[in-house]
């Protein structure tokens, strides 16, 4: 049964501009970023990401309300990621598979790899999209709060400077979180065809590593603190304390250069594994 009559307008040739690999990669990145937030997909795909966005903004809204009422401002901006671990982990677990596993599941990869981009371009564009999304989740609320604090500051330029400096630190902290978490989520999702598995794997890693870190912290003499190096959020928090001179929340942690080294090592390993995966994946 023929679905539609073909009105033969004829095939047109294209003699226009052809942009190179860079434009292709940028469009892949933007497409991925949109997909992570459910844009360009049916409404069902928008629910979870925007729910998490809302959750991320709630504390900030509350703080702004407090600020406008009582004038008290937040001392530091850098607690944001660790206090909101769960929504960030859920976002990562739910959306990294949308970004990566989906293309594998529906075998769309040959359509990409038969185009003038490299396999590594594809992997890195997806990684960049996830990192950007994670950063936006953290930085967005901070930005709004900072705007609010600047707007309500009346006569204290010192305060404004302090707020801005703290905001900058908060952003830096956000960058580290976005990179490590994004890389972790993406590399796990790259190995799963079924999205549900990828989601479970990311949450599983998060749960297990947190639980291991927690369990080890029960060892006397703080012997178990090395466990913190292996759980993403505690690792990043230690990095925050050490590198950004952040305020210590967890007294058991003893931040040191080890946190920086391990963070970088993890990111490097994740990216290399990701690239290898897409180099050798069957089409």
């Amino acid at each position, binding site marked *: 049964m023929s679905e539609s009559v073909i009105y033969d307008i004829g095939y047109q040739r294209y003699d226009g501009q052809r942009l190179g690999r860079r434009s292709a990669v940028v469009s892949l990145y933007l497409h991925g970023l949109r997909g992570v937030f459910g844009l360009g997909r049916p409404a069902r795909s928008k629910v979870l990401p925007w729910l998490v966005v809302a959750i991320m903004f709630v504390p900030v809204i509350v703080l702004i309300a407090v600020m406008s009422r009582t004038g008290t401002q937040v001392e530091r901006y850098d607690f944001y990621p660790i206090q909101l671990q769960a929504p960030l982990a859920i976002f990562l677990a739910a959306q990294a598979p949308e970004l990566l596993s989906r293309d594998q599941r529906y075998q769309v990869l040959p359509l990409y790899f038969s185009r003038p981009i490299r396999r590594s371009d594809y992997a890195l564009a997806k990684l960049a999209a996830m990192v950007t999304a994670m950063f936006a989740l953290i930085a967005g609320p901070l930005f709004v709060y900072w705007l609010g604090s600047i707007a309500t500051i009346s006569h204290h330029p010192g305060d404004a400077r302090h707020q801005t400096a703290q905001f900058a630190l908060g952003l830096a902290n956000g960058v580290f979180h976005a990179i490590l978490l994004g890389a972790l989520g993406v590399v796990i999702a790259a190995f799963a065809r079924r999205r549900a598995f990828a989601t479970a794997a990311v949450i599983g890693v998060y749960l297990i590593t947190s639980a291991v870190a927690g369990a*080890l912290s029960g*060892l006397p003499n703080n012997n178990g603190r090395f466990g913190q190096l292996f759980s993403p959020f505690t690792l990043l928090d230690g990095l925050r304390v050490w590198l950004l001179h952040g305020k210590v929340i967890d007294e058991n942690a003893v931040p040191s250069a080890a946190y920086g080294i391990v963070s970088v090592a993890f990111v490097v390993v994740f990216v290399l594994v990701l690239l290898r995966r897409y180099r050798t994946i069957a089409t």
Partner: protein
Amino acid sequence: MNAVIARITYRALLGRRRVLLLALLPVVLLLLAVAFRAGNGDATENLLDHFGVAALLPLVALIVGTGVLGAELEDGTAIYLLATPTPRSAIVTTKFAVAAVVTVAFTAIPEFLAGVIAFPDRTRLSVAYAVGTAVGAVVYVAIFLALSVATRRAMAVGLIYVLVWEGLLASFVSGIGVLSVQQYSLSIAKAIAHAGDEIPANVSLAVAIPMLLVVIVVASRLAVDRLSGYRISGEPG
């Protein structure tokens, strides 16, 4: 109970790669136990509760519970099973039994061993936790099996339950414990352990036991009902 279905399910669950993944988690528990023994740790809670009951148990139960029937339903191969004259209740019972046994094997037994390794002089505590874990395994599996029949996104819903309901909310709202499988496990463990052992259960036994029985029965009924009306669609959405 159907022996053929049971055999096939065992083999599918414990096929090579998945067994490695499933075994990985208890191995981590045992390694932690060794670390505790070496470091003379005595915070039993951290190891056996925070890791054993709150992380290992739900994750393994989730993987096994949603995988034992859910995988077949999702990729459509369940049609071969549903087209046989085996009653749906028998299918559900068999799958449930297999899943429960496997989960208990991969959670309660390692929990017991971990307790014995880490805290060698507190055997009764280890037994208590192991029994609590075993009961929790059965309840979790019932829930996740029912979920896998009721919805396509059983894994996601299960994760939300574990992470958000039992993880996040339970630490903020104390009443939630009544509907938390981990609390049932802990309350049973507390009942078995010595009076002096601190097991952080905030639901009493008198509430926990009836609740968990209700949950098992309701979940099983739900699973059988949903499976009886199950329609296999042509292509996954």
